[in-house]
């Protein structure tokens, strides 16, 4: 056996070499990690650049609010996707002298929701051509069938839309609609804000879902606001709570007389202030029509 001093000297030497070797190894690992990190950042930048560009394309597919402004006293809308691209959309189409419009929120957010949203819009466009003058519920029912059959996964569809489709007859001045788990608020001339009546079935969720056409009773001077739940589900405020429908109603009541585009700015500002530094919870959209 080694004399103690020599033993400890050798042990110390071995320990020192062990530490040097380990440090060298860790430094190589760190360099490798830094390289990987740089590669990942680059990939992330490329992916996000693509997403931003896709968002621009999706945005360019949205309709012109002036189509509604030509029929009603005023109209405006906002679609603010959570990550540049998403599942919220506004639909506006002239059908002869009539006009069809709606707001839709597709399952999820991001790329899959955007694909679903665009699919839904294309289907709606086609249905408007195939079924001119049809009641909103008939169009929505057909949309439901098409969406379900396109995206079905065994017994349940994985893709669905919520929202409402309105049909305005220039001849009768009647406004009929079909709500599929839709969110909407009606500002009356006396400043009261009431909720839009809507069916509870989403579009594309179940093959046999039923939908109903309702007449929307309005008077000149009143305002309709359609919105997606991304607006009311936004977390924020002093206690990090949801924005909620009641808060939105309060905002609308306080700005009941505003023109559509001004009211859009008001709602947008209220959402932004509430959100503050928080992440946007979901895709946000709203459509305002002054009658």
């Amino acid at each position, binding site marked *: 056996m080694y004399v103690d001093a020599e033993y400890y000297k050798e042990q110390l030497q071995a*320990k020192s*070499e*062990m530490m040097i*070797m380990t440090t060298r*190894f860790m430094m190589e690992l760190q360099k490798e990690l830094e390289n990987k990190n740089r590669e990942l950042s680059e990939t992330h930048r490329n992916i996000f650049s693509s997403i931003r560009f896709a968002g621009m394309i999706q945005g360019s597919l949205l309709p012109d609010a002036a189509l509604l402004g030509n029929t009603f006293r005023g109209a405006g809308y906002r679609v603010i996707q959570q990550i540049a691209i998403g599942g919220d959309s506004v639909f506006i189409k002239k059908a002869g002298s009539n006009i069809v419009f709606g707001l839709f929120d597709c399952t999820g957010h991001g790329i899959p929701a955007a694909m679903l949203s665009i699919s839904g819009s294309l289907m709606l466009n086609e249905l408007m051509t195939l079924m001119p003058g049809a009641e909103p519920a008939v169009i929505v029912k057909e949309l439901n069938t098409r969406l379900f059959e396109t995206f079905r996964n065994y017994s349940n569809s994985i893709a669905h839309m919520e929202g409402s489709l309105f049909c305005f007859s220039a001849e009768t001045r009647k406004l009929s609609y079909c709500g599929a788990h839709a969110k909407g608020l009606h500002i009356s001339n006396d400043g009261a804000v009431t909720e839009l009546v809507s069916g509870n079935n989403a579009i594309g969720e179940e093959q046999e879902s039923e939908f109903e056409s309702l007449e929307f009773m309005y008077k000149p001077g009143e305002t309709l606001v359609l919105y997606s739940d991304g607006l009311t589900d936004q977390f924020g405020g002093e206690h990090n709570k949801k924005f909620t429908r009641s808060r939105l109603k309060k905002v609308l009541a306080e700005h009941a007389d505003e023109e559509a585009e001004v009211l859009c700015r008001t709602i947008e500002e209220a959402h932004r202030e509430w959100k503050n530094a928080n992440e946007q919870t979901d895709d946000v959209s709203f459509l305002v029509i002054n009658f």
Partner: protein
Amino acid sequence: MKTPVNYNGFEFQPVYEGSYASAYYNGELGMILCVATEEYIPIEDFKAIFMRMSEMLEEFPARHLVFDKRKLTTFHQPSMEWYFAVWKPQVKPKGLSSHYKLLPDADWFAKAVEAGKNEIYEKYGTAFLEGITVNYRDTLEDVIEELQVPAT
């Protein structure tokens, strides 16, 4: 010579006792257990211990070797290099192909072992490990329990 030791109901007979390590054997498990008894094993003693293990395989045939390093605070990289790249392939034809290591609790020791292995692989490649398994476990009991589970 030390007295037999018992793990999980298996008796291990003492077969070697040196200044820096002791060894035990269980025929039923086909296992040699080599336990480091000091914080550091100088290279010449390290080689002597394992050459003795190699000789013992004639009398005590074993498929598994468990090297209990939990007392160590320092290892000598040239010893490790010899152990991995020379000794293990040497004893493989004698039937010893399954190696288990029990490391000290300290994270830094495991990291140092990883660094050492990395250097060995860079120098020798990994072909020398063909047909040899090397595993790290927390306790001998874990190793024995694992060996008792029938292979699927």
